[in-house]
Every structure is written in C-alpha cells, then in structure tokens.
C-alpha cells in the first residue's frame, strides 16, 4: 500500500454563495480508483492492490480455524517500511474502500481501538518480524509475491496449544 497526498474537493454553501474549499488528505492508493494519478507518477499499477490484502485477511479471519480460536496473530508487512499486527478476533470491514479507511487510520495513529471496549485491534509493530514470533516457531512463507503486492507477505501464527 502506498500513502500519498491527494486533493479532494469539498463544496459548501455559505449564505447563498457557492464556496469551493480544497482539502488535502492522505489516502491508500488503489489501482482502480487512482489509475490516472499513478500513471502520471509513472508507477506500476500492479504494485498498488490493497484489495488483495483485504481478500487475504478476510480469508484468514472468516475461516473456521480462526473462529475456533486457533489463529494466534496476523502480521502484515508494508513495502515502505513498517509492519502491523491484526488481532484474530477483529471484524474487518467487508468492503475494500472501508478497509482502506481503517488502514489509513492505522497508519496515521499507529493503532486502531475498538469503539466501546477501547481494546487495541490493529497496531503498528517494529521490524523485524522475528521479534514477534514464538520461540519454537516454524515459519512457512506462503504469500510472498514481490512484484504482485506492495505488501511483502502475510504471516499468521497458529496458537501452539491446539497441537
């Protein structure tokens, strides 16, 4: 995922006259919506696919393995540096645009809390990944497409108590 500064228009009405205010805010770049912006910057469109990350996370979180409590943690590495952890009991938004909004919130504030219980659901962790793995862990890298994703890989750790 790439975060870039982008302008959006906000039109408001003030005492009968039309006013245009330019807002500048950060956004997760998407190869569908931001194709013109990316092509203008000479970027590769295939490198900006947050929908693949969203689909992969939903595949893990919706599985009965996760519902049975056997997923310990999910880590997502970001191409521009950094990594964040997803708690297994999180309920991600079902649509990609809202998911990008949550990730944008995460990247700006370093953590995303639940609304009522104030529990940390997603938070940015330090690299390298080996600091967060269990001691006697066996690491299998199954999602590592360098060019396909702007995320290097997803590593999810199974809880040891189930085996």
């Amino acid at each position, binding site marked *: 995922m790439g975060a870039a500064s982008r302008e959006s228009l906000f039109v408001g009405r003030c005492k009968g006259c039309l006013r245009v205010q330019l807002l500048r805010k950060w956004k997760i770049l998407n190869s569908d919506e931001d194709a013109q912006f990316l092509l203008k910057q000479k970027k590769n469109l295939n490198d900006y696919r947050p929908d693949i990350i969203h689909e992969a996370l939903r595949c893990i979180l919706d*599985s009965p393995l996760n519902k*049975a409590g056997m997923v310990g943690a999910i880590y997502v590495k970001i191409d521009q540096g950094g990594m964040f952890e997803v708690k297994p009991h999180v309920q991600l938004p079902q649509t990609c645009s809202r998911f990008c909004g949550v990730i944008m919130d995460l990247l700006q504030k370093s953590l995303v809390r639940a609304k009522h219980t104030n529990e940390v659901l997603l938070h940015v962790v330090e690299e390298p990944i080996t600091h967060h793995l269990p001691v006697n862990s066996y690491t299998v890298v199954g999602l590592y497409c360098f060019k396909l994703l702007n995320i290097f890989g997803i590593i999810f750790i199974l809880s040891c108590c189930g085996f």
Partner: protein
Amino acid sequence: MKAELLQKFSIKSKGGHGKLLRLIQNPVTDHSPINSCKVGLSFSSQKTVQLRDYVSDANCNENLVFVVGAMAHGKIDADYIDDLISVSGYPLSAGTCLRRICIALERNLKIQ
C-alpha cells in the same frame, strides 16, 4: 458490468466468441440437471455432516446442486431443496462455504 447485464440481458466477450453472462428465466429448477440432488446449506440445520464424506457418499449418477445463501443472516427458503446440511460448527461466510465445497469436490475427484 452487473448493471450492463441487467440492461442488455447478456455480456458478450470482446472477441465475439459467444456470451459470457446471460439472464435466464425463473424458476431456477428449469435449469437444474434432470437427475440432480439439491443440497441446501445452513448453519441452523440439525444435520451436521463432514462435507468430504457427504460428497463421496453421493451417487455417481446423481448430479449435485448446492444452494448457498449469500447473506450471513437468515435462512434459505426454497422449496426445491431436497436436503439441508450444515458443514461446520461455526457460521461461515458465503466465500468460505464455497471454498469448502470446492475443496471437498476436488478431493473427491482426485484433482491435485
């Protein structure tokens, strides 16, 4: 593309080699195979099966038709369903359920 399908009743391929998506008439039973066993899937069903065993126990000359609901809430209300099964102890999303059906069929057909 879905809006175009509903407007033009079909989606054609770019090279002109036939239609990819087509609107068909109700009821859906008109389009089922003749000798078919229609299986509905619901979390609330009393009959919990192992999907791999269920698929292998089915008749070889019987076509399997799976009816999967798209929403996470509610129940399938269709009178053409012959059997209603539950494939997991947890409520599954439609995508997860369809993945499980595909994996069970792949293993039954020895597809690597």
